[in-house]
């Protein structure tokens, strides 16, 4: 328990971690404030104004169509029809109808919580995942490179206990920041919806869906921290974790994509990590096998559903593998 408390304190004292988390929170606050300021509530006046704009646009469209048709007829009467500019039959130029100009596109931006909040969670998840991956990698990587880890082992020689206690402290820190942050993020966007948008359609089921997505975001952040930590523990350097992930994302994914392409794999997108990311955030994603219907009009391509459960299994496997290799490396390798 002493070691755990000491590691929690150490995590809190790390300047890199502090600055990184503070910068991420500032970015999130800026986005939330920007969203609040960039939206407004739609009242009858705003709707009437949008209707007026739509009507004006409709009239302009009708006028333009009539002018064009007149020019077309003049051109055909003169015997020098410009086939590139006008259709063969000028009657084909018809004026738009009123229903083609709804008022909605002319309304000012408004924040509809039910529709737009899940999208903002993507931003939140991306930022916090990256931050805690880097923080996790630095928490042990910098300790190895600075000699702090060796000093600690001179006090606590049970290496695995040290490794997993540090990891526990890191995950506690990640949880302690991410869980309140996601709640504040929700509250901020709810406030935006109340004062600058709409909270309609937020039924109990909708709230349940939001809560589950947020829970998955927190799990993702914790997993990213553990993977960053594990990779840096294996390489004994922060840069190894960052480089390793970059290699997997760029080279690995390009390679898998190419392999799926040359082997004519069904559902090639199932090889790509972004699909798993989308499945995790949206709870599921549908993949379509377009190859089956190539050149067959009317064919309905088969689909499969990738769910958050698939992503969860993949994530758990990666975390377990990286942590296992890290534990083996830390236990077996000499400290020199």
């Amino acid at each position, binding site marked *: 328990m*002493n*070691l755990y*408390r*000491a*590691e929690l*304190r*150490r995590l809190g*004292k*790390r*300047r890199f971690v502090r600055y990184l988390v503070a910068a991420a929170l500032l970015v999130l606050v800026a986005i939330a404030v920007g969203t609040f300021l960039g939206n407004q509530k739609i009242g009858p006046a705003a709707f009437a104004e949008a209707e007026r704009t739509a009507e004006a646009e409709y009239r302009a469209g009708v006028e333009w169509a009539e002018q064009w048709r007149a020019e077309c007829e003049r051109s055909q009467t003169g015997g020098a029809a410009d086939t590139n500019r006008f259709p063969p039959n000028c009657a084909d130029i018809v004026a738009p109808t009123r229903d083609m100009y709804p008022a909605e596109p002319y309304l000012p931006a408004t924040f509809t919580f039910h529709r737009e909040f899940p999208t903002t969670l993507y931003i939140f998840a991306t930022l916090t995942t990256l931050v805690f991956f880097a923080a996790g990698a630095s928490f042990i990587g*910098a*300790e190895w490179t*600075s*000699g*702090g880890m*060796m*000093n*600690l*082992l*001179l*006090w*606590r*020689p*049970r290496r695995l206990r040290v490794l997993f206690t540090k990891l526990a402290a890191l995950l506690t820190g990640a949880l302690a920041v991410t869980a309140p942050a996601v709640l504040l993020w929700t509250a901020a966007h709810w406030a935006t919806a109340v004062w600058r948008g709409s909270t309609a359609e937020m039924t109990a089921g909708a709230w349940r869906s939001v809560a589950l997505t947020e829970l998955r975001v927190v799990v993702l952040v914790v997993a990213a921290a553990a993977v960053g930590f594990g990779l840096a523990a294996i390489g004994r350097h922060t840069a190894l974790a960052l480089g390793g992930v970059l290699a997997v994302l760029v080279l690995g994914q390009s390679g898998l994509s190419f392999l799926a392409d040359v082997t004519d794999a069904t559902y090639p997108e199932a090889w790509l990590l972004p699909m798993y990311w989308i499945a995790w955030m949206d709870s599921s994603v549908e993949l379509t096998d377009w190859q089956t219907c190539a050149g067959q009009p009317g064919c309905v391509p088969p689909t499969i559903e990738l769910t958050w459960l698939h992503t969860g299994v993949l994530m758990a496997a990666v975390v377990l593998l990286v942590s296992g290799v890290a534990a083996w490396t830390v236990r*077996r390798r*000499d*400290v*020199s």
Partner: protein
Amino acid sequence: MTAVLEISGLRKTYRSRRRGVRHAVDGFDMRVEAGQVHGFLGPNGSGKTTTLRTLLGLVAPNGGRMAILGQPVPQQLPAVIGRVGAIVESPQFFPHFTARDTLSLLAQAGGLAPHRIPAVLDLVGLADRAGERVRTYSLGMRQRLAVASALLKEPALLILDEPANGLDPAGIREMRTLMRDLVAAGTTVVLSSHILGEIQVICDSVTIISRGRRVTAGPVAEVLAAHSGGGLRVRLEAAADLPAAETALTTADGPPVTVTRHADHLLVHGVDQPARVTRTLAAAGLYVSELTPVTADLESVFLQLTADADADADVDQTVAADQTGAGR
């Protein structure tokens, strides 16, 4: 006496595809008695630091036995580490933490109460700058901080690898005083250093390692006596008489002696009794103004022993190569 540290037949081998097999420590033995300052000497790459790292559980040995405070290590290291303070090689600390934070985190990790932190900072002369970040410290100050971290545990055994690194002469003297005080308080100190004069002054006993093997060990006085060669320095009232004295000594009856003439004195080796020199010279009408045994210092003994070990190893390798060649 009780042994605080015992190493027997320690082996550590590194295997690398590029460099092949290297025996960093090869059957090394060491014994440190309680209440002593024990010097641990060896040239660069001789296996000193590997031995200390192995002892402290940082490096896994390939063979041999080790014990600290009577407990076998690395098996029982967690049980005794609380009574062992150590710094290994150059001190490294997280640069953005203050000295106080560094010690406080170590103390908390080790389950120690923080009340000793001000005391050890004061002991190593860092109390005034304890609130500053370690990155602003000089090498000497980092060294002091490392010693402070080792002292935090109130250790029964203190292992210091090059503790005088980066210290100014005043700092070295303070460190010497500190070690004497610690030993007086019952701590045993193992001190690895390249400053041989310092070791000679401060240590009760030494172990010298070369090429991973012990070349000598024992109380400092005994090690020096064993390698002083039994020479005598002879001065006469008149330096002009030195040639005559040389002749008298080399032609005297009894076992043959070796005489080396210097500008103002003679060095005589192979003399069984110093009285034989005075008697022989007096008989020749030459009068001795100084007759002192030539004592070796630790530096010369160290250089001699480590050079011998290198030569032996070279011979061993030549013989091995010859045998390999003969076997073909």
